[in-house]
């Protein structure tokens, strides 16, 4: 369980060094994107249109934050992760198209994303579900918000973060996936539990 502090833009070779169960903290620029923002970004890419920010080497956070506006300035109040599996539909193409290096969320992602991360060089960082205030504390500045027409949770928030973490590398760029490993072990344990309960 090695600990790394990463600064954006993160070079591809740096994420390729990471292994599952490493702990990372990110400083620099990240964006939030849920289903709708992923979909729109990929549509833009296919049509050859530019998205509002160059994402190369940045991190994408699966999160619908609560953000408040005071005196024309946005502040993040609470920003816990949302369930990442919903983005399995888009993530491999998203990484390929925009070269994000870290995908952050909760609950893990599937085979297709794991393959994509291996192929294009990215990792999945699990952030503690529900730890919304801890996340907000690391978000020092809202640089801008784009696609606000999608609604506050679905918009693309561009955030400056300082030591955002702990993020557990749960999928690395070598095809390892902690959630899949845990699931396999849990399946093995199921029989032991049945036995112990006399079932």
């Amino acid at each position, binding site marked *: 369980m090695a600990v790394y502090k990463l600064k954006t833009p993160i070079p591809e070779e740096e994420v390729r060094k990471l292994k599952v169960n490493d702990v990372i903290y990110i400083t620099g620029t990240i964006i939030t994107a849920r289903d709708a923002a992923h979909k729109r970004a990929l549509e833009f890419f296919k049509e050859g249109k530019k998205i509002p920010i160059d994402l190369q080497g940045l991190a994408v956070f699966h999160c619908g934050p609560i953000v408040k506006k005071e005196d024309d300035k946005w502040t993040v109040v609470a920003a816990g992760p949302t369930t990442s599996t919903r983005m399995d539909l888009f993530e491999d193409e998203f990484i390929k198209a925009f070269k994000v290096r870290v995908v952050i969320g909760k609950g893990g992602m599937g085979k297709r994303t794991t393959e994509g991360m291996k192929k294009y060089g990215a990792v999945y960082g699990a952030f503690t579900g529900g730890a919304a205030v801890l996340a907000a504390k690391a978000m020092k500045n809202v640089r801008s918000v784009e696609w606000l027409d999608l609604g506050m949770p679905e918009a693309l928030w561009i955030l400056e973060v300082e030591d955002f973490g702990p993020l557990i590398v749960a999928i690395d760029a070598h095809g390892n996936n902690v959630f899949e490993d845990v699931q396999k072990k849990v399946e093995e344990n*199921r029989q032991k539990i049945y036995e112990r309960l006399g079932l």
Partner: protein
Amino acid sequence: MDIESLVENVAVEILRQAVIKLPPDVKDALRRAYREEESDIGKTQLEAILNNVELAEKTGTPVCQDTGVIIFYVKAGAQAKILGKIEEALIKATKRATIEVPLRPNSVGIFTRKNTGDNTGRYLPYINWEIVPGDNIELTAFPKGGGSENVCALGMITPGEGLNGVKKFVVDTVIKAGAKPCPPNILGVGVGGGADIAMKIAKAALLRPLDQPNADPEIAKLEKELYEAANMTGIGPMGLGGKFTVLGVNVDHAHRHPASYPVAVAVQCWAARRASARIHPDGTVKYLTHKVV
């Protein structure tokens, strides 16, 4: 102040307490899990949770961005004079708390697909009524998050399977849920009654503090057995592997039809939010779960 406004104010206050500050028994259970967790990764998650809980209290911010669907449990004294006005007071309180705390608007119409924006709507806030002797009114606010709600399960098992069937259903439900309900979780298990009764008592079982063992030794034994079984799965904090998949298991039961054997599992995320207060007819209020500063 008239008692109706008092009920409204108290309801806003317990909603605020509930979403910002976890009850002492839940915090203790999380601290214990942190001390006893054997997986390093599991420990990082519990540490982040404890840091988050502390920060939420310090800054007066909701502990999780999902402030849930608003549920109240009301123990209404049959002699209390304002019984007919409590529902309206709780609806007003929910709207106010949404702005004042704030709560995330979490009430979406099935056919309109629109979010009402104030956490009210058809059957929301949901009120569970219990009429009790006396003239006090006891309110409990129970905001329930969506992630853990999505893995609640009801099984209508074969009566012949009996308690073994109950145990299997609970274990299978925990394994199927995996990382989804933000473990470590609390399980409310309701056995018997009918389909609706089982789920109702399962959810209400989540109101019992974790440090309060079941009064019935036989049920207490079943709770312990289910707790140990769930923590043998290895799902661990946030599904990243580890010892603590659950913080506690609370069981309740009802008599059943000879041909039916319902088992309901109500799953609660680690952000187990609840707050209670008792209102006396003379206008005095006693907060039961949280200290008021």
